[in-house]
């Protein structure tokens, strides 16, 4: 069985697996964290410790999509509402009982050197394996000069990181906010300040929605709302991009704990492939509970076994180099869509998507006769609909009529409804493949162009040279 343990993350943090709970409600108390460790979580970043705050009610709201709850999630909750003493006493207890699990203290105090020195010392005395500096909280705390107010100003971030490093004996991770035009600015500042690692991303500024009866955005706090931090499955693509940006930049790159929409082993594997050393999870646990970690661990192990990876280090970062600038992509790589007639169910979503959203090269002309070429040669989707509405339909009331209506043909779908790709016009954009509801029905097939690979950079450089 593959070994999914993490050794020496950010210098010296060990964890039985890469799955950590992010600093959030699921890590509010020692009791909760111990239950999480029992469920199988490798580590936990304690709900941010600092001067206790007062929260409002309500605090959360979500974006549902197409019947799925919590595609995106939003909160306006602040840091821990319990005293530093309470949190650290429990942390000592947790470390005593679970010495092998990683316990990270997330910290946020006022921006002065003494306050940071004091909290660092107290957290480490309680047994924290590492520290995570919360420079990311985008709501509430930022109005008081903390959280993302620090994380959005590279100079502040560097200064506070340096203060912490003066005192810290354990690895120091800086948690980055995505609410900045280039996340690398603060990543570089943290690195300059001496950080041992980074956590990214924190939540994204958001208003999840507005109640159309009361006109009050959610969450509603006595008739008013405030922007919150967005997270959950919806933010994963944004997080992956920022993780890639950080780890592809030598001035930013540090051991990274990936955060953002992770809810399954697949999500986790993607963050690890982009170079993360651990991953942090919150929304999925708030939705389903700590129990989700067993499939995350099992699924990752099974995938590693299938791929022949023995440890996380065998594949960590493999995808970093597979992301490049657009100008380095091969302009002569050509793929086209192919539709498997035996699998097509005749929804014709690829047809309308290609016509209205892409390049007008998927047609319904298998029966009338293929027409290749420009848009003007074809009937438009609107004309097709008018034609179809003009056809008479009758209820098949006799057995014979029903046998005719439901007669089996060469394909499961009548040929007239199986779209055809005009490969001379297909630009290989993938849209049809994205909309097709049947897995494997549309494949994107490489077409040999008979020419060598050539990038935009190469082509324009040649242009410049030939014009000389």
């Amino acid at each position, binding site marked *: 069985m593959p070994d999914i343990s993490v050794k020496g993350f950010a210098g010296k943090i060990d964890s039985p697996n890469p799955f950590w709970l992010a600093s959030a409600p699921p890590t509010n108390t020692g009791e909760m964290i111990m239950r999480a460790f029992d469920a199988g979580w490798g580590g936990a970043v304690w709900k941010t410790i600092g001067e206790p705050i007062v929260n409002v009610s309500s605090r959360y709201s979500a974006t549902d999509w*197409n*019947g799925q709850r919590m595609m995106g999630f939003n909160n306006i909750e602040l840091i821990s509402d319990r005293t530093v003493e309470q949190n650290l006493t429990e942390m000592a207890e947790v470390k005593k009982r679970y010495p092998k699990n990683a316990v990270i203290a997330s910290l946020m105090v006022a921006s002065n050197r003494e306050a940071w020195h004091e909290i660092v010392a107290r957290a480490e005395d309680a047994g924290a394996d590492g520290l995570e500096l919360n420079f990311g909280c985008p709501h509430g705390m930022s109005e008081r000069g903390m959280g993302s107010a620090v994380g959005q100003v590279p100079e502040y971030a560097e200064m506070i990181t340096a203060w912490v490093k003066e005192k810290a004996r354990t690895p120091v991770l800086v948690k980055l906010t995505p609410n900045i035009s280039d996340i690398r600015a603060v990543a570089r500042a943290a690195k300059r300040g001496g950080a041992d690692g980074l956590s990214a991303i924190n939540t994204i500024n958001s208003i999840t929605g507005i109640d159309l009866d009361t006109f009050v955005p959610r969450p509603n706090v006595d008739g008013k709302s405030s922007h919150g931090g967005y997270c959950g499955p919806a933010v994963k693509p944004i997080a992956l991009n920022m993780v890639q940006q950080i780890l592809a930049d030598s001035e930013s790159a540090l051991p990274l704990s990936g955060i953002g929409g992770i809810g399954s082993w697949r999500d986790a594997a993607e963050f690890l492939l982009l170079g993360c050393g651990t991953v942090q999870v919150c929304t999925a646990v708030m939705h389903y509970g700590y129990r989700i970690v067993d499939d995350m661990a099992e699924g990752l192990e099974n995938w590693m076994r299938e791929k022949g990876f023995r440890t996380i280090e065998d594949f960590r970062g493999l995808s970093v180099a597979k992301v490049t600038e657009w100008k380095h992509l091969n302009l002569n790589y050509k793929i086209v869509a192919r539709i498997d007639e035996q699998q097509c*169910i*005749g*929804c*014709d*979503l690829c*047809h*309308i998507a290609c016509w209205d959203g892409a390049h007008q090269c998927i047609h319904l002309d298998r029966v009338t006769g293929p027409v290749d070429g420009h848009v003007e040669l074809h009937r438009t*989707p609107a004309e*097709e*609909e008018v034609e*179809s*509405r003009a*056809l*008479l*339909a*009758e*209820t*098949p*009331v*006799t*057995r014979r009529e*029903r046998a005719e*209506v*439901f007669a089996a043909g060469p394909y*499961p*779908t009548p040929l007239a*409804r199986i779209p055809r790709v005009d490969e001379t016009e297909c630009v290989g954009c993938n849209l049809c493949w994205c909309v097709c*509801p*049947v897995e494997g029905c549309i494949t994107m097939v490489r077409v040999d162009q008979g020419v060598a690979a050539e990038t935009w950079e190469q082509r324009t450089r040649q242009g410049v040279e030939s014009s000389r």
Partner: protein
Amino acid sequence: MSTSAITDDPQIRERFGELKPALTRQAAVIEADRCLNCFDAPCTAACPTHIDVPGFIKRIASGNLRGSAVKILDANILGASCARVCPVDVLCEGACVMVRQNRKPIQIALLQRHAMDAFWASGELPPVKAAGPRKLRVACIGGGPASLACAAELCRQGAQATVIERRELPGGLNTYGVAEYKLRAADSVREVEMIRKLGVEFRCGVDVDSASALDALEAEFDFIFLGLGLGAMQRLNVPGEDSGGVMNALELIAAYKTGHLRELHGTVVVVGAGNTAIDAANAARRLGAETVYMLYRRSQNEMSAFDFEYEHAKQEGVQFLWNRLPVAIRPDPDANGRRLLETVQVQQVNGQLIPLQNSQYAMECDLVVPAVGQSPLTDLLQKLRGVEVRDGRIVADRVTGQTGNARYFAGGDCVNGGREVVDAVAGGKRAAMAMLKSAEVAHA
């Protein structure tokens, strides 16, 4: 409109409770979200009225329930009753692409009902389609779905339409002939009431049965739409059929829906195996008959009833006797008031039904229910000048419904020989559009 002719008997209501419960709001949204929103959807193509099915379903998903209902009503003014009576297995739901992926088809009928229920609850009317009034007056003879659809479309387009109905209440088979557990007579009447509010005039209890009556209509109206339906049910043509203890399927259904029949006991034999036969057999069970047989002269494979209707009848406890022919009905000498239905087993040889020797059997029963189809309407048809009738059906253009006489249009059962409500609606609507177009050309 008086609704005294339909029953509100609590016993009937209890015994004929709705077959399928309505979807809750959230269940409807979940189901609506499941719809793939196909382009030029096969469900829409399969529907005779071409309701934009994904269009109304996605409006349910988005919470635009009024838009959803209007979308339905624009295509099919009887959208509420069709949601309950359509054999969707062989129409929209049967065409759903989901089945090709081994997934359950979208529950289109229940979603349509959800949208229509919300519309009824709002008390609103579907909007008119045309900007202003037109000088066009049309009489629709017969008050069934074809005429209702024709008249409603005409009024929504600014024309005037009058429905002339022989019976006390309009609605045709929707009011008098559909199993109550599918569509309550009261709901059919409510739908008619909506059409009346759209501006359709109703003349009920009026039988157009003479040449002079037709003359009067021709003088009053520009066009006449024939939505006559079919005639009385066919007779078995066996001795003893008129001696009591016999009530045909449509009479039986109308009788319990109008409060004239509250209970049945003993054994009922329904002769026939179509969808109406099944409605009557199920009704007999629900009215209290202990034993209900369906007797069919051919085999199960030739039964015209839809498969889901056959399955339903079995669940209701109806028993089926195949390849058996009724030959006579006579009083049971051993039991006062009961009947003996003489039957014989038959075998098909080259399409002919040949009685088997020594297969006579007398079934003791309390009621015989012939359900072997409706006869064509012959009386009035013979009086229609220039309207061709072939095999008991009015010959009309398939698209426009126009007959050989340019002022007469026709649709529904009297043209198609007996199909579903949705087919009648489609025929009526197409005829209305053709009349409007014809009038436009005439005035241009």
